[in-house]
Protein backbone atom coordinates (compact mmCIF):
# COMPACT_ATOMS: atom_id res chain seq x y z
CA UNK A 1 0.00 0.00 0.00
CA UNK A 2 1.09 3.59 -0.62
CA UNK A 3 1.36 5.90 2.41
CA UNK A 4 1.95 9.63 2.72
CA UNK A 5 2.86 11.33 6.00
CA UNK A 6 2.39 14.89 7.20
CA UNK A 7 4.60 15.96 10.13
CA UNK A 8 3.56 19.08 12.04
CA UNK A 9 6.12 19.29 14.83
CA UNK A 10 9.85 19.70 15.12
CA UNK A 11 12.31 17.24 16.60
CA UNK A 12 12.68 16.68 20.37
CA UNK A 13 9.98 19.16 21.50
CA UNK A 14 7.14 16.72 20.67
CA UNK A 15 7.18 12.97 20.23
CA UNK A 16 5.27 13.36 16.96
CA UNK A 17 8.58 13.63 15.13
CA UNK A 18 9.74 10.33 16.65
CA UNK A 19 6.45 8.54 16.09
CA UNK A 20 6.56 9.45 12.42
CA UNK A 21 10.01 7.89 12.03
CA UNK A 22 9.01 4.71 13.86
CA UNK A 23 5.88 4.45 11.72
CA UNK A 24 7.89 4.94 8.54
CA UNK A 25 10.40 2.25 9.50
CA UNK A 26 7.61 -0.20 10.32
CA UNK A 27 5.73 0.56 7.10
CA UNK A 28 8.86 0.01 5.02
CA UNK A 29 9.66 -3.18 6.95
CA UNK A 30 6.24 -4.49 6.03
CA UNK A 31 6.84 -3.80 2.35
CA UNK A 32 4.64 -0.74 2.00
CA UNK A 33 5.65 2.22 -0.13
CA UNK A 34 6.10 5.71 1.35
CA UNK A 35 4.95 8.03 -1.42
CA UNK A 36 6.01 11.21 0.36
CA UNK A 37 6.76 12.69 3.79
CA UNK A 38 5.63 16.30 3.99
CA UNK A 39 7.08 18.52 6.73
CA UNK A 40 4.75 21.36 7.66
CA UNK A 41 4.47 23.93 10.52
CA UNK A 42 7.35 23.38 13.00
CA UNK A 43 7.86 20.04 11.28
CA UNK A 44 10.22 21.84 8.91
CA UNK A 45 12.72 21.97 11.78
CA UNK A 46 13.35 18.25 11.30
CA UNK A 47 15.29 19.12 8.16
CA UNK A 48 18.19 21.08 9.63
CA UNK A 49 21.68 19.72 9.08
CA UNK A 50 23.12 21.87 11.89
CA UNK A 51 21.71 19.91 14.84
CA UNK A 52 24.18 18.36 17.27
CA UNK A 53 22.14 16.14 19.62
CA UNK A 54 23.81 14.66 22.71
CA UNK A 55 25.90 11.59 21.84
CA UNK A 56 23.70 9.27 23.90
CA UNK A 57 20.50 10.50 22.23
CA UNK A 58 18.92 9.89 18.85
CA UNK A 59 19.62 12.15 15.86
CA UNK A 60 16.25 12.56 14.17
CA UNK A 61 17.46 14.31 11.04
CA UNK A 62 20.19 11.73 10.55
CA UNK A 63 17.59 8.96 10.82
CA UNK A 64 15.51 10.55 8.07
CA UNK A 65 18.56 10.99 5.88
CA UNK A 66 19.52 7.33 6.34
CA UNK A 67 15.98 6.20 5.49
CA UNK A 68 15.93 8.52 2.51
CA UNK A 69 19.14 7.02 1.13
CA UNK A 70 18.10 3.44 1.66
CA UNK A 71 14.54 3.74 0.36
CA UNK A 72 14.80 6.79 -1.89
CA UNK A 73 12.14 8.59 0.17
CA UNK A 74 10.66 11.86 -1.03
CA UNK A 75 11.14 14.19 1.97
CA UNK A 76 9.48 17.52 1.21
CA UNK A 77 9.75 20.62 3.36
CA UNK A 78 7.01 23.26 2.99
CA UNK A 79 8.63 26.37 1.60
CA UNK A 80 6.32 28.89 3.27
CA UNK A 81 6.59 27.29 6.71
CA UNK A 82 10.35 26.88 6.28
CA UNK A 83 10.96 30.49 5.27
CA UNK A 84 9.06 31.75 8.32
CA UNK A 85 11.17 29.58 10.60
CA UNK A 86 14.61 30.03 9.06
CA UNK A 87 15.04 26.73 7.22
CA UNK A 88 16.51 27.49 3.80
CA UNK A 89 18.45 25.72 1.10
CA UNK A 90 21.19 27.05 -1.14
CA UNK A 91 18.82 28.36 -3.82
CA UNK A 92 16.71 30.23 -1.27
CA UNK A 93 19.84 31.59 0.35
CA UNK A 94 20.98 33.08 -2.93
CA UNK A 95 17.56 34.36 -3.94
CA UNK A 96 16.88 35.99 -0.56
CA UNK A 97 20.37 37.36 -0.05
CA UNK A 98 21.07 35.33 3.08
CA UNK A 99 24.62 34.36 4.07
CA UNK A 100 24.06 30.74 5.07
CA UNK A 101 21.72 27.79 4.60
CA UNK A 102 20.87 24.85 6.79
CA UNK A 103 18.75 22.26 4.98
CA UNK A 104 20.16 18.77 5.12
CA UNK A 105 20.84 16.60 2.11
CA UNK A 106 17.97 14.23 1.49
CA UNK A 107 15.28 16.90 1.92
CA UNK A 108 13.85 19.12 -0.79
CA UNK A 109 11.92 22.37 -0.39
CA UNK A 110 8.65 22.78 -2.26
CA UNK A 111 5.14 24.18 -2.05
CA UNK A 112 1.94 23.12 -0.31
CA UNK A 113 0.68 21.61 -3.54
CA UNK A 114 3.00 18.71 -2.76
CA UNK A 115 0.94 17.97 0.34
CA UNK A 116 -2.30 17.91 -1.62
CA UNK A 117 -0.68 15.69 -4.23
CA UNK A 118 0.55 13.42 -1.43
CA UNK A 119 -3.06 13.06 -0.31
CA UNK A 120 -4.30 12.36 -3.82
CA UNK A 121 -1.63 9.87 -4.87
CA UNK A 122 -1.31 7.83 -1.68
CA UNK A 123 -3.78 5.24 -0.44
CA UNK A 124 -3.55 6.69 3.07
CA UNK A 125 -2.41 10.00 4.54
CA UNK A 126 -1.33 9.94 8.19
CA UNK A 127 -0.75 13.14 10.17
CA UNK A 128 1.69 13.33 13.08
CA UNK A 129 1.53 16.45 15.22
CA UNK A 130 0.71 18.06 18.54
Amino acid sequence: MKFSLQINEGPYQHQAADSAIQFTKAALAKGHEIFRVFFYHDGVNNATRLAIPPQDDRNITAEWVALQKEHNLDLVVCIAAAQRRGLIDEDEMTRQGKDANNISEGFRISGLGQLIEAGIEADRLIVFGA
Partner: protein
Amino acid sequence: MALLHTVNKSPFESNTFDACLGLAKSGSTVLLIEDGVYAATTGNSVADKIKNAAGINFCVLGPDLQARGVEEKLAEGIKVVDYEGFVDLVAEHDAVQAWL
Protein backbone atom coordinates in the same frame (compact mmCIF):
# COMPACT_ATOMS: atom_id res chain seq x y z
CA MET B 1 -16.29 2.74 5.62
CA ALA B 2 -14.45 2.70 8.91
CA LEU B 3 -11.99 5.30 10.18
CA LEU B 4 -8.89 4.86 12.28
CA HIS B 5 -8.66 7.62 14.90
CA THR B 6 -5.34 8.36 16.57
CA VAL B 7 -5.20 10.20 19.91
CA ASN B 8 -1.83 11.39 21.24
CA LYS B 9 -2.82 13.61 24.17
CA SER B 10 -3.30 12.68 27.80
CA PRO B 11 -7.00 12.42 28.69
CA PHE B 12 -6.19 14.10 32.01
CA GLU B 13 -4.75 17.25 30.48
CA SER B 14 -6.60 17.71 27.21
CA ASN B 15 -10.11 17.22 25.89
CA THR B 16 -8.79 15.57 22.72
CA PHE B 17 -9.78 12.07 23.80
CA ASP B 18 -13.32 13.24 24.62
CA ALA B 19 -13.56 15.05 21.28
CA CYS B 20 -12.51 11.88 19.51
CA LEU B 21 -15.07 9.74 21.36
CA GLY B 22 -17.75 12.30 20.52
CA LEU B 23 -17.15 11.92 16.80
CA ALA B 24 -16.02 8.30 16.46
CA LYS B 25 -18.64 6.21 14.72
CA SER B 26 -19.58 2.74 15.87
CA GLY B 27 -17.30 0.28 14.06
CA SER B 28 -14.34 2.63 13.96
CA THR B 29 -11.07 2.13 15.81
CA VAL B 30 -9.33 4.44 18.25
CA LEU B 31 -5.55 3.97 18.55
CA LEU B 32 -3.97 5.58 21.61
CA ILE B 33 -0.37 6.71 21.07
CA GLU B 34 2.23 8.92 22.80
CA ASP B 35 0.70 10.64 25.88
CA GLY B 36 -2.67 9.30 24.72
CA VAL B 37 -1.79 5.88 26.12
CA TYR B 38 -2.67 6.98 29.65
CA ALA B 39 -6.33 6.70 28.57
CA ALA B 40 -5.75 2.93 28.32
CA THR B 41 -4.84 2.58 31.99
CA THR B 42 -7.18 1.43 34.69
CA GLY B 43 -8.34 2.62 38.10
CA ASN B 44 -8.52 6.29 37.21
CA SER B 45 -11.05 9.02 36.56
CA VAL B 46 -11.36 8.38 32.81
CA ALA B 47 -11.50 4.58 32.77
CA ASP B 48 -15.27 4.45 32.40
CA LYS B 49 -15.16 6.36 29.13
CA ILE B 50 -13.72 3.42 27.25
CA LYS B 51 -16.10 0.97 28.92
CA ASN B 52 -19.05 3.11 27.90
CA ALA B 53 -17.98 3.66 24.29
CA ALA B 54 -20.01 0.88 22.73
CA GLY B 55 -19.05 -0.27 19.26
CA ILE B 56 -15.59 1.36 19.20
CA ASN B 57 -12.46 -0.81 19.01
CA PHE B 58 -9.67 0.43 21.24
CA CYS B 59 -5.99 -0.21 20.59
CA VAL B 60 -2.91 1.16 22.30
CA LEU B 61 0.67 1.45 21.16
CA GLY B 62 2.75 -0.89 23.35
CA PRO B 63 6.06 0.94 22.92
CA ASP B 64 4.46 4.10 24.33
CA LEU B 65 2.92 2.22 27.27
CA GLN B 66 6.28 0.63 28.10
CA ALA B 67 8.17 3.91 27.80
CA ARG B 68 5.87 5.43 30.41
CA GLY B 69 6.06 2.53 32.85
CA VAL B 70 2.29 1.95 32.85
CA GLU B 71 2.11 -1.35 30.95
CA GLU B 72 0.87 -3.19 34.05
CA LYS B 73 -2.01 -0.74 34.46
CA LEU B 74 -3.55 -1.64 31.09
CA ALA B 75 -7.35 -1.78 31.24
CA GLU B 76 -9.23 -4.81 29.93
CA GLY B 77 -10.50 -4.97 26.38
CA ILE B 78 -7.79 -2.84 24.81
CA LYS B 79 -5.56 -4.44 22.21
CA VAL B 80 -1.84 -3.70 22.41
CA VAL B 81 -0.06 -3.18 19.07
CA ASP B 82 3.50 -2.30 18.10
CA TYR B 83 4.50 0.06 15.26
CA GLU B 84 3.91 -2.69 12.70
CA GLY B 85 0.47 -3.19 14.21
CA PHE B 86 -0.08 0.56 13.82
CA VAL B 87 0.79 0.22 10.13
CA ASP B 88 -1.64 -2.69 9.79
CA LEU B 89 -4.42 -0.65 11.39
CA VAL B 90 -3.83 2.16 8.92
CA ALA B 91 -3.95 -0.27 6.02
CA GLU B 92 -7.10 -2.00 7.29
CA HIS B 93 -9.12 1.20 7.72
CA ASP B 94 -10.37 3.47 4.96
CA ALA B 95 -8.82 6.68 6.26
CA VAL B 96 -7.01 8.02 9.29
CA GLN B 97 -8.14 10.89 11.45
CA ALA B 98 -5.41 12.23 13.73
CA TRP B 99 -6.87 14.02 16.73
CA LEU B 100 -4.09 16.51 17.39
